[in-house]
């Protein structure tokens, strides 16, 4: 980021996300979540706790809103006018959407959160100084801050032995969020690198997708045309890019795929498929 560097690559830096941003992407990891299959059972959320060294904060702090659940299941009641919710509950697994034009990235004063060539919103814990602006600027509210030091309270001996050595334990004053299980991506990419081959579709499975009893979560690389997730995005005519582009892309408005807060133009990497209900 020297001045030389900035001047030489000015045209790259000044490009917006809709023009491809300043990246030559290697991958663009993405998800497709079928809300019709999501039963709200919390398996993904718990798997995330297990995989990513998430701290358990306890009753008081949870009620204060200081929980650290990177993946939370939101439950909405539609049909509020009825006496009973006759079509059940609406469950929404919500985690970092790894936006292509992420709002968290430009506001971090120290560039602790930035866009990786994999199309992920990285969060470099060591660089974070805890200004918390990123979380404030996240429309999905999926960034969690270490309001306390949890190392001793959340993992009393011998529980610390369960901690995943592939991912840091965050101390107080650091922002954290869903990484699409970057440590798994890293392991698979390293393996592929050692074997001189590209990463296969289905090789990287984040903990949530792995656990989901109904297989509602599909994960993959949208730059790989043949990947399951690419096909799903294509099938539902959801395209990367900002609203204007995606709106025109969607020729059949009845298709179930959509991204949350599409109108904010943040280009999320998670496509949801609408819940289906039979009216009887």
């Amino acid at each position, binding site marked *: *980021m020297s001045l030389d560097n900035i001047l030489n690559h000015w045209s790259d830096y000044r490009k917006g996300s809709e023009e491809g941003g300043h990246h030559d992407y290697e991958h663009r990891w993405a998800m497709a979540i079928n809300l019709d299959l999501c039963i709200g059972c919390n398996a993904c959320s718990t798997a995330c706790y297990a995989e990513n060294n998430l701290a358990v904060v306890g009753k008081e*702090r949870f009620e*204060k*809103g*200081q*929980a650290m659940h990177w993946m*939370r299941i*939101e439950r*909405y009641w539609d049909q509020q006018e009825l006496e009973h919710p006759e079509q059940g509950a609406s469950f*929404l697994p*919500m985690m970092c959407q790894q936006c292509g034009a992420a*709002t968290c990235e*430009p*506001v*971090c*004063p*120290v*560039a602790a959160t*930035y866009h990786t060539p994999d199309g992920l919103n990285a969060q470099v814990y060591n*660089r*974070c*100084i*805890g*200004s*918390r*602006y990123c*979380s*404030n*600027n996240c*429309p*999905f*509210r999926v960034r*969690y*801050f*270490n*309001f*306390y*030091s949890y190392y001793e309270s959340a993992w009393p001996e011998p529980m610390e032995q369960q901690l995943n050595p592939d991912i840091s334990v965050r101390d*107080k*004053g*650091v*922002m954290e969020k869903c990484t699409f299980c970057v440590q798994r991506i890293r392991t698979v990419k390293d393996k592929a690198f050692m074997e001189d081959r590209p990463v296969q579709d289905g090789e990287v499975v984040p903990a949530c997708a792995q656990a989901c009893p109904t297989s509602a979560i599909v994960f993959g690389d949208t730059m790989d045309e043949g990947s399951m997730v690419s096909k799903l995005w294509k099938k539902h005519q959801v395209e990367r890019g900002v609203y204007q582009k995606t709106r025109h892309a969607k020729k059949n408005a009845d298709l179930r795929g959509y991204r949350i*807060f599409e109108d*904010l133009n*943040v280009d999320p990497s998670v496509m949801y498929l609408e819940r289906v209900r039979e009216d009887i």
Partner: protein
Amino acid sequence: MTMVTEKDINEQIAWAKINTDVLKSMENPRPAYWVTLAVCLAMVSTAVVAEYIQYTVGMGTANLNNPHMWDMYIAAFVFWIGMSHSGTLLSAILHLIHADWRKPIYRFAEAMTTFSLMTAGIFPMIHLGRVWNLYWVLPYVSDRGVWPNFRSPLVWDAFAITTYLTASMLFLFVGMIPDLAICRDNTTGWRKKLYTILSLGWVGSDQQWRNFRKIYLLMACFLIPLAVSVHSIVSADFAMSIMPGWHITTFPPYFVAGALYSGCAAIITLFILLRYFFRFEDYMTLPIMEKTAKLTFAIAMVWTYLNLIEFASVWYGHDIYNKELLIAKATGPYAWIFWTMIFCGSVLPFALAFKKLRRHMPTMFVVSLFLNLGMFFERWMIVAPTLSMSQEPHQWDIMYGSIVEWGIVFGSFGWFGMLFLIFVKIFPSVSMYEVKEMVFHRKRSAGEEDLARMTDHAKPVTQATGGEGA
């Protein structure tokens, strides 16, 4: 139509008396001064305890939570930055437009600028999760090759605030040099040493005065755009985001107006306090108070106007999140804060439109405090409700600060008061040379040039050489 205008200052006042009065203020304030200082110190100690808890236990002790990552610390930060603006207004803007009634009160206003900036500057540190890495927001070359993110308004903040603080401190200092020389010549002991160093060898020669005038004008010109840009940049902390209630185009002027407003209100408060502490009735006169009050009233109306513009643009805009938020602000759980803010910010200033009230010090004191309360609420209404009710309804929540957070914010007032009170005790809080100037000009314009009588009275303080050049 003839109007009997009261004089801003008694033109007959002798220069020597000016020196005596001001110098006396630095030694012998009323007991109320000490009481106030003690209160301020107590408030600071509260904050120190609170900050110690927060630093050791974690930011969570401030009741911050997932939607409310920012709260009163940022509101207080904006509040204090805002308060700093009126000092610049009085000293720089009014200097350029030759409004010489500013002269008896601009010094403390400028001090207020510097100290409120110092108070404001502490808040980003208090608020940071890992404050020991604060220097990472500054660009420096290191072997790691990492740089701050120049796109972030917080980095702009760091630049803007440090620049503004440096500039306003220099401005305060430079403007004080002739007075420091007077102090140097009239004190003994450690004070004399201090003033000797600080007066930088001022003897009041013609060349020194020429250079002084030039640099003072230059700095005034430099400071005005700086002040405006600083608060615009602070407003960018919000306006550059995507959040409803923050992403608003009119924020820069709105913030600047709000800043001037709260600053003017604070000047009224401090005006009354200093006038009482140091028996400055001859300098901080009622007509000057009236002028300040009128200025405040005008700015209040500007602020109200900008407020209405903001509401209107949100109301008629297509941003549904924003509109929902506006309605929630006015009707939701924070409504009492919202309406207090509207009352204090837009209705209460009409008290300033009445001459009787303007001249009644206790009333003005209370009114000015309420104006600032309104402005503090305004800052809080900008920061917190947006976070309470952003786009994602699952994370909607309400929050009120914890005792730790309150303690620190409360203590910041003590911190400011402490710095300010110590300053006015050590340094001349009324600009002696400029008051002399003022008296001189007024007198000359009134056709009275009885200089002889004035120099007669200079005898008791024979060392008062600093004023001679005026």
